[in-house]
């Protein structure tokens, strides 16, 4: 009984977004990373083009994390507190990108100055040859000050700067425009809000090829299903021609899963949760795998083993 494999006739593709710039292009990166370009749903290669593999980014902080899970602390060991060494170790493990979170600039977490943040960015750029994503501490005013300094310090590098939100995007977008960077547009798990923010940002003159969508990641057990479905809806809209949704996804799987009790707490939790270390890594990997199935283009992860494993998973899915 001959069975004909059904294929969807998608009409559009996700835009390609390039991170990093080589010396010839005004940057210093040894390699660029292009994400996006999909003309079909995740890994259905027989149906449409998937020109670029999803990329794993290692999450690095600008300070020694004092509130991280003991599992992460012991896995990274000495490099915590040394962002350049930490980033280099992450890249050595297989990460194709580095995400530097400037948490130490938060007033409650050290209040480092924009100039100090810029120095950290330069040090990380020097330590690795992959493109760099830089996230502010998540407080609008501080983010703006810090990210402007970072954008200038990394001028021409095609950093990805984040995050832009509907209430705070102008300063970051202007800094990206002036210094040739990409921005991350973050909206709270909603198709229309994501589109609206992309419109606002592109209205400022930053074209869509310079924007990544952060759909807001929920960890496994903590809202993952909302992220999963909003990503599927956005991606289907992108493939059927909705221009403002045709951007690659940036997902902070590590940040979200490692702040949950399952990954943070060893004692006083039910025995049925199983071995702490094994569970915590599995929590991050299950979150990341589901997001990959929903169309994630950049997966920011925290644990060394998660990074190594997800790189291999992507190898298999892109074979």
């Amino acid at each position, binding site marked *: *009984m*001959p*069975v*004909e*494999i*059904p294929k969807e006739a998608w009409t559009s593709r996700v835009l390609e977004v390039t991170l990093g710039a080589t010396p010839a292009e005004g940057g210093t990166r040894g390699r660029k990373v292009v994400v996006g370009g999909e003309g079909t*749903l*995740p*890994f*259905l*290669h*027989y149906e449409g083009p998937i020109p670029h593999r999803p990329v794993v980014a290692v999450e690095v902080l600008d300070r020694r994390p004092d509130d991280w899970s003991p599992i992460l602390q012991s896995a990274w060991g000495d490099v915590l507190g040394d962002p350049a060494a930490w980033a280099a170790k992450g890249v050595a493990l297989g990460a194709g990108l580095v995400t530097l979170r400037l948490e130490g600039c938060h007033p409650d977490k050290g209040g480092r100055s924009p100039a100090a943040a810029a120095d950290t960015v330069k040090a990380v750029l020097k330590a690795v040859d992959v493109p760099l994503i830089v996230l502010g501490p998540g407080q609008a005013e501080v983010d703006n000050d810090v990210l402007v300094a970072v954008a200038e310090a990394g001028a021409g590098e095609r950093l990805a700067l984040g995050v832009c939100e509907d209430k705070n995007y102008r300063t970051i977008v202007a800094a990206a425009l002036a210094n040739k960077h990409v921005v991350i547009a973050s909206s709270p798990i909603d198709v229309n809000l994501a589109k609206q923010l992309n419109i606002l940002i592109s209205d400022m003159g930053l074209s869509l090829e310079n924007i990544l969508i952060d759909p807001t990641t929920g960890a*496994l*057990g*903590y*809202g*993952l*299903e909302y992220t*999963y*479905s909003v990503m*599927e*809806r956005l991606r*289907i809209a992108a493939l059927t021609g909705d221009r403002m949704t045709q951007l690659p996804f940036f997902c902070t799987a590590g940040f979200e899963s490692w702040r949950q*009790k*399952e990954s943070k707490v060893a004692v*006083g939790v*039910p*025995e*049925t*949760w*199983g*071995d*702490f270390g*094994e*569970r915590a*890594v*599995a*929590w991050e*990997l*299950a979150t990341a*795998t*589901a997001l990959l*199935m*929903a169309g994630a283009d950049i997966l920011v992860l925290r644990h060394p083993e998660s990074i190594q*494993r997800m790189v291999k*998973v992507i190898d*298999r*899915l892109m*074979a």
Partner: protein
Amino acid sequence: MALSGLEIYKLLPGGLKPPHPKANCKECGYPTCLAFAMKLAAKQADLSACQYVSAEARAALSAAAAPPVRLVTLGAGEFKFEVGNETVMFRHEKTFFHFPGFFLRVRDTDDLAAVGPAMAYSVERVGMHLGLSGVAVENASGSAATFAAAVKQIRGLTPKPLILICSDPAACQAALAVEGGQRPLLYAATAANWQEMAALAKESGAALAVRSDTLDGLAELTDKIKGAGVEDMVLDPGARGMLEGLQTLTNLRRLALKKNLRALGYPVITFPGEGAADALDEAIVAAEHVAKYAGIIVMDHFSPALAYPLLTLRLNIYTDPQKPIQVSPGLYEIGTPTPNSPVMVTTNFSLTYFTVAGEIEGSGVPGYLLIADSEGMSVLTAWAAGKFDAEKIAKTVKQFDVESKIAHHKLVIPGYVASLLGELEDEMQGWEILVGPREAVDITNYLKNVWR
């Protein structure tokens, strides 16, 4: 696949060419055959209301009404496992209905002691108890007697459904004889043995897994087996590995839903451990299968640390997007509160409730947790949607008579809705409104160091 109203109309007296003499007779209670067809399409009417529809049309309509992915039941009683009946490719289109079951594979040459604890495993999440669905017993020994003895032993260890993995019909028969008639799944019928396997399934009432490494071959086999009188089938398309698994399972779901291909309209069984490097790798592959279209997932490893995240993922993916899991509004006692204990209010989104209740319990400070009806939304979402405002909170405090339980007039609200403070003070004269932490994880610190 369901027919559209117009497609149904063409089968009714009024839609035939030429029209039936009883076209638009109104005897069904609707003004025209077209109106009746629309109601049928919306499943708001029953075809039996029309006496004049032809037998062929009736058959076509009832066939179209059958689910595109057949519902297959394994086991019986409390531990019955049902899978299938899916109607969409993406959960946001409606919902996924029957979550995939995890079955632990053991071999009849193994020590079977691990089966008991694995089947007894139950982890609680948002008030639900999650666990494995059953055991897949493999006839690795090649001996029918050893296989039957293992099945008998496992039947003594768990009442959950079994999958009998054996290619030798004689060994299957021996196992079926001691299985206890609990509707197991026989794995698997192939091009080589399908006649005997189908006969065994038919005779014993077992469901039958069908394996072929091509979809053509699979469709051909299910067609023949159906012809032999077996309806309840499960497909193994032979796909192993993440890429082939994803693509093949997507194709199967699409063929069933979009092409209405009955021959492949059955749940799919997967074996994520085959080809996996280790237990964690198997769990990653299984996570893919949970997201993308598996019906039965046979695992080679069991440990709580890997089962818990996988069961949680399954819960996430199979939660109805239209109906967030909710708890009943009310005043909940955490620990043994006294009239001087704190009262905290939050929404009835189950995850919110269980997270907050867990933290209060963990703090060691007994208290009351007041749950307002936010229609299952979390604090911020409910606040944004107007389902968790000052009026709702004040009303909930009255509704559950909080005043009668406590000696003070203090109410702790979530930090995320600190902006409701002024309005609440107006609504609840005589109460002191306190702003609690934003995140549940900070509740312990709040109750121990801030609450007074």
